[in-house]
C-alpha cells in the first residue's frame, strides 16, 4: 500500500516536472519531435493501409463489377444452372435481396479483318468470354456501364451488337505473345466475327469497357435474348446469377439461406469473398504480412527516435537530474517525467496523424483512388485497428523513453552533479 502511494507520489511529481519541461521547452524542438511522431504514425497506419487497400481495391472492384455480393454459378460438372427458374424464384422471394441479374457465359473466338485478310496472313483473333446480359437488371446489380470508355453500352433490344472488354483490343493491351492474342484495328463500329461452338455470327462493336477486373476486361457482352439463340438454350437456364443484397445485410446470410433452400444441389453459391481466386487470397495475406513488416520497421524507427531524443535530453540535463536526486527527488519521479514526455510526443503525434488520416488522406484517396496497374488502390484504415496501432506506438514510445531516462537516473548522483564520468 505504502509502495503504491509512493509510486503515485512519484508519478505526480514526474507529471509536474514533465508538464513544465514540455511547456517551457523550445517550441521548434517540440514541434520537430511531434512531426517525427506524426510521420511515424502515418508510416504505421498509411503504408500498411495502402498495401492492404491495393488488394482491397481489386476485391471491391470485382465485387462491384462482377460478382456483386453473392454469386450463384454452375457446378463444375454442369454446363449451366439447372432449374434456373426455381433458383430465380427463390432469390426473388428473399427479402434480403436488393436485385439480381442472370447471365449466360460461353467461350468465344473473336475475329477481325476477316474480309480483307489474305490467305497467307495470320488471322486477327482473340479468345473471349461471351456474356449474355439483361442490360437493365445488370445495371441494377453492377456498374460495368460506368466503365465505358468508347461508344455505348448494351441496351434491351440490341441485336448483333457487342461491348468488348479492353483487354481484347491491342490498342489497350499492346502485348505480343503467342499465348495471348488481341484484336488489332478494332474500335466502335467495327464489324467482327464471333464463333461460339459451331455457330459463327457477325456483330458490330458498340462500345468498349475498361476495368481492372479481368473477368470484365476479357469479356464480350451482348444481349441475353440474342445469346440464348446463339448458344441454342431456350430452357431459361443460365450460367450465373449475381445477387446484390440490401444495405446492412451480410452476404453470408443470403448464401446460407440459398444453401438452406437446396440451391447448392444445382449450383455453386458463394459470397464475393468465397469467390475470390486463391492467388488473390494469397496476395491479401502477403500484403498484410508486408504491411506488418513495414509497420514493425516504422515502430522501430519511432522507438529509436524517441530513445535518442530522450537520451540526448537526459544526458544534457544530467547535472540537473543529479541535483534533483541530490535534493531528495526520487529517481522514479524523474523517470516518470521522461516517460510522460514520451507519451505526450506519441499522443500528440498520433492525434495530429488521426486528423490527417481521417480528415484528409482517407477521404482524398477514397475520392481519387491510387491508380495501380491492377487495382484502384484505396486506404484501408479501420478505426479499431488504427487505435490498436496507436496503443502499440504509445507502448513502444513509453519504453523508448523509460530506458534512456533510467540509464541516466541510475548514474551516481554526485558524479552527475559534478559532471564526472
Amino acid at each position, binding site marked *: 500500500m505504502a509502495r503504491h502511494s509512493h509510486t503515485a*507520489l512519484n508519478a*505526480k*511529481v514526474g507529471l*509536474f*516536472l514533465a508538464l*513544465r*519541461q514540455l*511547456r*517551457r*521547452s523550445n517550441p521548434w524542438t517540440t514541434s520537430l519531435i511531434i512531426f517525427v511522431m506524426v510521420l511515424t504514425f502515418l508510416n504505421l497506419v498509411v503504408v500498411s493501409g495502402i498495401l492492404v487497400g491495393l488488394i482491397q481495391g481489386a476485391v471491391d472492384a470485382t465485387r462491384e463489377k462482377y460478382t456483386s455480393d453473392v454469386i450463384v454459378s454452375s457446378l463444375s460438372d454442369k454446363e449451366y444452372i439447372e432449374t434456373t427458374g426455381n433458383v430465380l424464384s427463390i432469390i426473388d422471394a428473399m427479402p434480403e435481396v436488393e436485385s439480381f441479374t442472370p447471365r449466360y457465359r460461353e467461350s468465344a473466338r473473336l475475329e477481325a479483318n476477316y474480309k480483307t485478310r489474305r490467305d497467307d496472313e495470320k488471322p486477327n483473333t482473340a479468345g473471349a468470354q461471351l456474356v449474355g446480359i439483361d442490360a437493365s437488371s445488370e445495371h441494377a446489380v453492377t456498374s460495368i456501364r460506368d466503365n465505358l470508355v468508347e461508344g455505348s453500352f448494351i441496351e434491351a433490344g440490341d441485336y448483333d451488337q457487342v461491348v468488348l472488354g479492353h483487354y481484347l483490343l491491342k490498342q489497350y493491351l499492346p502485348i505480343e505473345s503467342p499465348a495471348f492474342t488481341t484484336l488489332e484495328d478494332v474500335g466502335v463500329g467495327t464489324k467482327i466475327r464471333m464463333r461460339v461452338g459451331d455457330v459463327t455470327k457477325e456483330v458490330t462493336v458498340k462500345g468498349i469497357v475498361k476495368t481492372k477486373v479481368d473477368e470484365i476486361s476479357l469479356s464480350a457482352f451482348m444481349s441475353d435474348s440474342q445469346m440464348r439463340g446463339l448458344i441454342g438454350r431456350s430452357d431459361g437456364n443460365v450460367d450465373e446469377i449475381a445477387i446484390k443484397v440490401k444495405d446492412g445485410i451480410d452476404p453470408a446470410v443470403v448464401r446460407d439461406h440459398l444453401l438452406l433452400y437446396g440451391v447448392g444441389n444445382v449450383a455453386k453459391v458463394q459470397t464475393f469473398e468465397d469467390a475470390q481466386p486463391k492467388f488473390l487470397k494469397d496476395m491479401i495475406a502477403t500484403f498484410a504480412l508486408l504491411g506488418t513488416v513495414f509497420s514493425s520497421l516504422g515502430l522501430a524507427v519511432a522507438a529509436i527516435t524517441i530513445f535518442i531524443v530522450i537520451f540526448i535530453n537526459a544526458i544534457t540535463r544530467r*547535472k*540537473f537530474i543529479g*541535483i*534533483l*536526486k*541530490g*535534493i*531528495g*527527488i*526520487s*529517481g522514479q*519521479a524523474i523517470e516518470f517525467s521522461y516517460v510522460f514526455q514520451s507519451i505526450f510526443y506519441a499522443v500528440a503525434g498520433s492525434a495530429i496523424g488521426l486528423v490527417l488520416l481521417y480528415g484528409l488522406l482517407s477521404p482524398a484517396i477514397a475520392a481519387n483512388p491510387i491508380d495501380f496497374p491492377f487495382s484502384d488502390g484505396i486506404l484501408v484504415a479501420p478505426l479499431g485497428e488504427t487505435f490498436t496501432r496507436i496503443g502499440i506506438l504509445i507502448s513502444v514510445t513509453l519504453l523508448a523513453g523509460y530506458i534512456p531516462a533510467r540509464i541516466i537516473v541510475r548514474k551516481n*548522483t*554526485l558524479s552527475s*552533479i559534478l559532471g564526472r564520468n
Partner: protein
Amino acid sequence: MITTTNLTRTFINGTVTTPVLRGIDLTIDSGEFVSIMGRSGAGKSTLLYQLSLLDEPTSGEIVIEGVNARTMSADEKSAFRLNRFGFVFQDYALLPELTALENVAMPLLMQGLDKKAAYEKAEKALAKVHLAHRVAGLPSQLSGGEQQRVSIARAVAHEPGILFADEPTANLDNESSQAILAIFTEFYQAGQTIIMVTHEEEFASHAERIIKIDDGQIVSDKKLGK
C-alpha cells in the same frame, strides 16, 4: 548532530590513487554555523558531500542524528536528504524550466504536500530571502544573487535539520555575497544548523566555528564565540 569517526575518502583512477580525506574526526552540534575552509583541492567539498550523504566514504563512520549512514540504503539516504537536509550549490542549480516558486516547491511536492500547500510554503520561503516579488521569474530572468537566494529558499522551505552550502558566494559579486551571508546569519540566529564550505576568510568569519582542512585532514577547528 553529525559525528564522523576516522572518515576517509580515496579516489582511484586507473592505477592512480588519490586520498582526499584522511581520517576526519568531527562533531557538529545542532544549531551550529560551521564554515569549512581550505585551499582548492584540500578536501573541503568532498567532506561536505560525505556529511550530506551525497557520496560514500572509503572508510570510517558518519552518524547523523543517531543514525549510522552505513546502515542506510540509497533510498533511505535520498529520503533523509529530502526531509532532513537542505542544500545550496555553488552554481545555484535551479531547474531552468521551473519558475522560482516551482523550484522551491519541488522538494515540498516530493514530501507529499499538495500543490496549494507546497506553493504557500514556497512563497513564505521566498519571502524569507526577500524574493516575494520574483516568484514567477524563471532562473534565466533572475540575477545571480537572486538565483542563489531562490536556491537558499528551496533548501530551507521544508525546514531541514541541517543546511549545507557549497561555496554559495563563489559566483556572486560582493554585494550579493553579503546579502546571502546576511540571510545565513538570520537563519543561524533562528536556530538553523548550517555547514558552509568557503575559501574566503571574510565570509567564513560569519560562522561561529571555522574548521580548516588541508591535505585531507583537519588542521584547525576554532570557535569564534558568537
